């Protein structure tokens, strides 16, 4: 046996076989991704972490730092108390948008994939529900800002229909502003989620549904007992990506509130807060905030994964 192995090694070294010669192409094809990843993601990531340990900003046109401050930036962020507030805002607005979004998407995708409904114009509706996602978020936010302005069309419509006596100032009300942000996010992303869930549902073997049909299961039972459990991997994926997207929520509330997060910074998200530090090019604090965000995202994703995916993991490993 050892003799034979040695022999093989010897021959390959002298004359590479076809597979070995082709292997090099594998690495060449990997190269573009690796380079892009290193230049645009790995280096900035390491740089951000490195920057977070320094005091480094512009005071007017004068550079302050970089001075090494250890964990000083993190301490400043943690003790300020603002961080938890903006984290809370972000999560509230994400949940407000995500719950209707997932309900709507589940409903739509189960209708679209249900063969017994024989829905007509499916392709048209699928396109239509995806359309809001194609509009640039900032344009969408600008549109809503104009529409819901105190002198905007929504107010004049409501007043003319005698639903309200006085124009309602949407952007000075906490609930209305957060609600609008959540509504816009929901509107923009439910189409995308529907498509993802449909892909998941179409992946469930049809014979299971047929068997359930033969056994006399009601559509509700089919949904809760078959579709939903088998959809779990996709649901976890949707949850995690949406959570990460939600934590990075920026463009919609930024444009809608003119970067201020009004009223009283109750619609200011973590990334908007990060953006505030870029006014003075405060790479230290902004870096520390980014690192904290990375940690928060990792923890939350892990929690979501644990809660929704544990059973499945256990089942498979068993």
């Amino acid at each position, binding site marked *: 046996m050892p003799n034979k192995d040695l022999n093989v090694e010897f021959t390959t070294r002298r004359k590479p076989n076809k597979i070995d010669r082709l292997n090099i192409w594998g690495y060449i094809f990997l190269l573009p991704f690796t380079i892009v990843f290193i230049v645009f*993601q*790995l280096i*900035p*990531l390491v740089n*951000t972490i490195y920057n977070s340990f320094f005091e480094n*900003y*512009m*005071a*007017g*046109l*004068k550079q302050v730092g970089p001075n090494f401050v250890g964990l000083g930036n993190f301490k400043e962020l943690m003790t*300020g108390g*603002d961080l938890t507030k903006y984290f809370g805002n972000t999560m509230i607005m994400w949940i407000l948008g995500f719950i209707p979004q997932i309900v709507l998407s589940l409903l739509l995708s189960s209708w679209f994939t249900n063969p017994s409904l024989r829905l007509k114009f499916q392709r048209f509706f699928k396109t239509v529900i995806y359309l809001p996602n194609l509009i*640039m978020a*900032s344009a969408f936010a600008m549109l809503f800002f*104009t529409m819901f*302005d*105190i*002198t905007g069309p929504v107010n004049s419509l409501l007043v003319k229909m005698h639903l309200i006596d006085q*124009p309602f*100032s949407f*952007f*000075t*009300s*906490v609930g209305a502003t957060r609600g609008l942000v959540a509504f816009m996010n929901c509107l923009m992303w439910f189409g995308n989620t529907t498509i993802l869930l449909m892909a998941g549902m179409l992946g469930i073997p049809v014979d299971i549904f047929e068997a359930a049909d033969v056994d006399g299961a009601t559509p509700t039972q089919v949904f809760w007992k078959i579709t939903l459990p088998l959809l779990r991997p996709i649901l976890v994926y949707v949850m995690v990506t949406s959570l*990460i997207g939600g*934590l*990075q929520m*920026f*463009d919609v509330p*930024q*444009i809608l509130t*003119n*970067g*201020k997060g*009004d*009223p*009283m910074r109750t619609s200011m998200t973590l*990334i908007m807060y*990060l*953006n*505030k530090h*870029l*006014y*003075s090019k*405060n790479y230290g*604090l*902004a870096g520390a905030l*980014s*690192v904290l*965000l*990375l940690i928060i*995202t*990792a923890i939350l*994703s*892990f929690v979501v*994964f644990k809660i929704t995916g544990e059973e499945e*993991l*256990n089942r498979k*490993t068993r």
Partner: protein
Amino acid sequence: MKSMKKTLAMVAAVAMAGSVFAACGSNTGSSSITTAATTEAAATEAASTEAAADTEAAADTEAAAETEAAAETEAAAETASDEGKVLNIQVWNEEFKSRVTDHYPGYEEVDATHGKIGDVDVVWTITPSTDNAYQNNLDTLLPGNADAAADSKVDIFLVEADYALKYVDADVNVAMKLSDLGITDADLSDQYQYTKDVVTDANGDLRGASWQACSAGLIYNREIAKAVIGSDDPADVQAAVADWDTYNETAAKMADAGYYMTAGYADTYRVYSNNVSAPWVQDGKVVIDPNIKAWVDATKVQVDAGQTSASADLWGDEWAKGFYSGQGTKDVFCYFGPAWFFNFCMHSDDDASIAANGGWGFTVGPQGHFWGGTWICAANGTDNPSLVKDIILAMTTDKDVLKDIATKDSDCVNSKSVLADLASSEDGNIALLGGQNPYAVLAEGAEKVDMSKLSIYDQGCNEEFQAAMKNYFSGAGSYEDALAQFNSAIVEKYPELTTD
């Protein structure tokens, strides 16, 4: 083991997803700023096309004057022959560009952002001030300007009073001393002292000049004045707004009659903030002046009594509805503003506006104040010093040019003799003020403006304070909450400052 592997893979995936956004956070920020900038630039461009139409009409009548100017151009071109071929000008709106187009002898417009003076190409770079974009742009360009390629060197940049000190700082040295350009004190002797104070550095060197004197007053709606006060004569209106007590009484009358006293909560801000007893920042600490607090208290009362709107931001749609009758929630009695406000903000080019029908009047108001103004600075490192010198001299000291600016654009110019001249002549009568001549009032105000309370943090402090207090006025939080929001916003913007 298998679950271990999966967990590891998961962690790796999350780390990667995290890295995506660690890099993206700042990215998204800058890209959205650019978007906002582009949108606004587009808007300004649209506005400028209208303005251009006006300009053309005026240009025709002034054709004779231009032939005269042509001779001068040649002279200018000669002096500039050994200098740069491109004159780069950094601005935040169309104002200076239209002033140069209309009044600088020999300037030919090529398109919206390009022009020609002799054989020098003039390139205008317009970066809106929103979100500090204009200053960020200057901050990247100016420090390395001397080493930039000849054609991309910034030659002229403009600054506002709120942040002028940042750029005329002697240590920073991004704006040239006017004395190095060859401009003497004698050249500027006719200018108001405050316009020089704004751009004087700690060593007493002058590093900029302005064509405007921006003392401001109260601009009132004549119709409403007749209806509520009983007269639209400036003296009678002045009596009704002579100090803050009578102003507040009049505001109550306006609300009873169904009008807003001012369009928005921030309208009176400048009047208070110009009359403070100390600068915003003292020894690295932000201090709320008693007069600023007085603004908060007075405005809260007015908002609660329905005398002004808590949601109308300065320059916003709701705020601007007061320039027309019957368009906003309520019609607006008065705005506070200097002379540039007349022509630049009040929609006088729209036939439906009150301004186009001469429906405004002008008086001093409860307290004297100033607002804004634009200073021309020569960028250190410019390769067109003689042309820059000529532009600064022509635009800020040439009396004919200044008089033209005043009569054509209703601007209050930075020349004591031209203002005195206008105050006593029919040339100073302004159509949108119903033919009233405001120059005596403006000139008197300009003498009194006191710039000693200026700090380099004024723009950030003024903006953030108004934004934070808006929440208090609208009832979203208490004064203490709003103050806390202001404090955290200031520390974000200026990490070197402390607050209470």
